[in-house]
C-alpha cells in the first residue's frame, strides 16, 4: 500500500508551497496521476482522506486528473495509446516503444487563500 506514502508526500509538498505563499487555507488541489504510474486513484483517495487530517489540505477539494498513457514506437515513430507497459505498436507490431505519458505523479496546482 504505497499509496499512503504518496498521500503523505502530497500533503507535505502542497502544505510547503501554501506556506511559502502565506496561505491560510488550501481550497482546492489538482493532482495528475498517469494511468500506468503504479498508483491507483481510488486507493490514493482513500489514503488522502486520512492524510489530510489537521493539515492545510483538510477542507480542500481534491481533483484527480487521470493522464492517459501515450507511447511512441521507436521503430516506425507511430504514436499510440497503450493501456499497459507491454503493448506492441499498433502500427508495426514492435515492442520497442517509449512511454511518453502515463507515468505522471504530479501536483498540478493548488488554490489558496
Amino acid at each position, binding site marked *: 500500500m504505497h499509496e499512503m506514502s504518496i498521500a503523505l508526500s502530497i500533503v507535505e*509538498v502542497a502544505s510547503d508551497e501554501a506556506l511559502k505563499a502565506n496561505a491560510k487555507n488550501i481550497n482546492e488541489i489538482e493532482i495528475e496521476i498517469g494511468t500506468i504510474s503504479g498508483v491507483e486513484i481510488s486507493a490514493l483517495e482513500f489514503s488522502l482522506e486520512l492524510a489530510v487530517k489537521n493539515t492545510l489540505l483538510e477542507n480542500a477539494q481534491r481533483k484527480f486528473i487521470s493522464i492517459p498513457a501515450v507511447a511512441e514506437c521507436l521503430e516506425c515513430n507511430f504514436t499510440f495509446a497503450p493501456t499497459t507497459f507491454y503493448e506492441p505498436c499498433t502500427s508495426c507490431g514492435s515492442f520497442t516503444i517509449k512511454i511518453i505519458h502515463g507515468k505522471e505523479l504530479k501536483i498540478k496546482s493548488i488554490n489558496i487563500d
Partner: protein
Amino acid sequence: MCDTCGCDQSNDEVTIRKPGEENNKHSEHTHEHDGHTHSHSHVHSHPNDHKQEHEHNHKHEHQSHSHERKIELQTDILQKNNLLAERNRGYFEAKNIFAINLVSSPGSGKTSLLERTILDLKKEIKFFVIEGDQQTMNDANRIKSVGAPVIQINTGNGCHLDADMINKAINELEVENNSVVMIENVGNLVCPALFDLGETKRVVIISVTEGEDKPIKYPNMFASSHLCIINKTDLLPYVDFDIEKTKQYAHQVNHHLEFIELSVKTGEGMKEWYEWIKTFSKSK
C-alpha cells in the same frame, strides 16, 4: 501519521540496526501528544519529516476581500524521495561505490544470492549490505556470518525502502570508498518499483518456481530494472517454467533488460553474475 495505514502513530516503527543491537533500547521512544517528543537517541529513521502545518496562526488580519488565488505547481509528488535519492547517488559516485538495489518477490533467493556472492568475491571486492524486511534481524545475521558489514532496516508495516532510510543506513554503516553496496529491498514486486534509492543499478530476481508471466503481471518493477536474474535453474527439470517465454514477456515491458540465468545452490551461471558486478565495480 503512519505511512502505511494512516493510523495516528507516526512511522517510528522503522528501525535501523546492526546485528547485536537487537535489544538496543535506543530505538524505542515515547510519544507525547502529536508534537513528536521522542525519548531516544540515534538511528531513528523517519521517511517523512512531518511538519506541524496546523495551528498556523496569522496575526495580521486580512480585509474582507478574498485573497483566493491559484498556484500552478507541476511538482513531482515524489520530489522529496527523488532529491534524497540523487544525494545518495552523488555520495556513491563520489566514493566510487557501485550500489545495487535488489528487488523481487519474497522467496526468490535474494539473501542466498548475496551470501554466496560475498563468500566467493570477498577477497576481491569489499561489500557492504543493507537489508530491508518488515521484521526480524535474520537476514542481517546471515550476511554478518559470511563476513560483510551489514545493517538491517525493519520497515515495521512499511512495504518498501525509501531514499531517506538508505541515507541513514549508509551513514551508520560507514561505507568505504571503492566498495559495492548491496541493498536488499523488501520482498515485494509492487511498491519498491516507485521509490528510487539512488542506486547505480536495479536488479530484479525471479526464480523458476514462480510464474513465467511475472514480468507482465508486475510491469513497473521490470520496466525500471537494468538486470533480471533468473534463479534456481537447477529446479528447471521439475517445474513448468519456460525461460524463453519469461524473457519475451520481460522484453515486452523493457527492451533494455539484460538477463543472467543462474543457480545459487549449484553455482551454475554465477560466474556471469560476478563478471557483471566486476564490470561496474571499482574495487581492486
